[in-house]
């Protein structure tokens, strides 16, 4: 396994305002479903409403997933802040 392997887990919370919901958008039938940020909302219903407000002008499909249910794993080269480590 190389040094670039997916070895860094980022598990710090993202719920700065309230529960965070990762947001995925597909704009057309042939497009990929792509990550388009996240919304903060206390419930799935409110998250769905916020996502609809933001993306209904362009989205054909919206998927939402609680950020705290997402495993974030990446290479060390990408995780610039996470890999900064803690001070002694």
């Amino acid at each position: 396994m190389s040094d670039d392997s997916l070895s860094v887990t980022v598990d710090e919370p993202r719920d700065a305002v309230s529960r965070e919901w990762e947001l995925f958008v597909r704009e057309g039938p042939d497009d990929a479903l792509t990550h388009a940020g996240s919304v903060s909302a206390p419930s799935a219903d409110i998250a769905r409403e916020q996502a609809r407000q933001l993306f209904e002008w362009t989205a054909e499909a919206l998927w939402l997933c609680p950020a705290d249910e997402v495993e974030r794993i990446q290479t060390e080269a990408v995780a610039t802040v996470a890999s900064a480590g803690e001070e002694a």
Partner: protein
Amino acid sequence: MISVSKLLCDLDAEGDGLRYDAAEESRKEQIRDRKQRRPVVVWNVTKQCNLYCEHCYAAADTEVADGELSTTEGKALLDDLADYGVPVVLFSGGEPLVRDDLEELIAYADEVGVRPVLSTNGTLITDERARSLRDAGLKYAGVSVDGLPERNDAFRGEEGAFDAAVRGIRNCLDAGLKTGLRYTITERNAPDLRGVVDLLTDEGLDRFCFYHLDYGGRGTEILDADLTPTQRREAVETVCDMTRDYHDRGEEIETLLVGNYADAAYIVEYAREHYGEAKARTVYEYLRTNGGDPAGERVADVDYQGNVHLTQFWQNYSLGNVRDRPFGAIWDDDSNPVLAALRDRESRLTGKCAECAYSDVCRGGSRLRALTVEDDLFAPDPQCYLTDEEVRTRPPAAPDTGTAD
């Protein structure tokens, strides 16, 4: 940010290089290079605050929240911002002074070439802390006061907050720190505006930033306290009149309006009425360079957990997190439809914004307010107070040079 004192009274001030590409004509310290094209970044270093203000966009709390970027992570973020060419980092909160590593972070920002400035409620700035902030390399402290004592203290949820903030301002000024006022105008404190400026001018303050209420965080809970269009127009006129009065008396205060680019059109019309067409044209050209509402372009926000936002007020939508991806990569990722649309918003604006003569100096104002009130990212800003006549007017034309090209 619209500098009333620059536009109406030709005040030379730091920051005009960023706002109006006016660095070459300035005698003050200016940012002159490629950094002008990068966003100013607000970094909410903590959610914790010693006060509990009614209008706090960050919905700050009195307790420490989980997930704050550590000192080391903060320095990595500052490296990241420096690499991307960010010109200014505004340390904000919560109340940034509750972090005991604030000076260390400010010093690091200064060391890596990102100009460190501060937004604070001022109540924790002792004379010792003011000196340590200065010694760390802080370039500016903006202290929030939202009315004369009674109204400010009610707004901020603590008796004595006004006096504590004024002590903080005095300590900053005594330490030789460039210091200014931040004042969010609402229906409740609009009558205090001139009184606060008079009082703090006597204290030696010479920079006053007036914020329109944006609809983020707890700001969404006090929409009923926001100004009506008529009141807003009167408040902006007061700022313009007051600025001229001070300058006419030889007191060169710097005054700025923040958060509502209908003000840009209003100031062009104000200049036309009070100074004539040539002055209005100059003001208009400055404001065209300034470029209107900056969300998603010339201002960005990183919250205490590293989430990146379109502005500091737009906390309930994040583009990504700096623990996952460098700030520059997040900010440059136009595959995000909202980010791309904000950068091409003029073609998408609807209603009166679509036909407004001043859309190039306003660019529709706050998209967050449109979204919050109208449920539509491209609807007119509900705070726009321009008349139908102003929307249809002809902006000042460039002089006819008689040459064709």
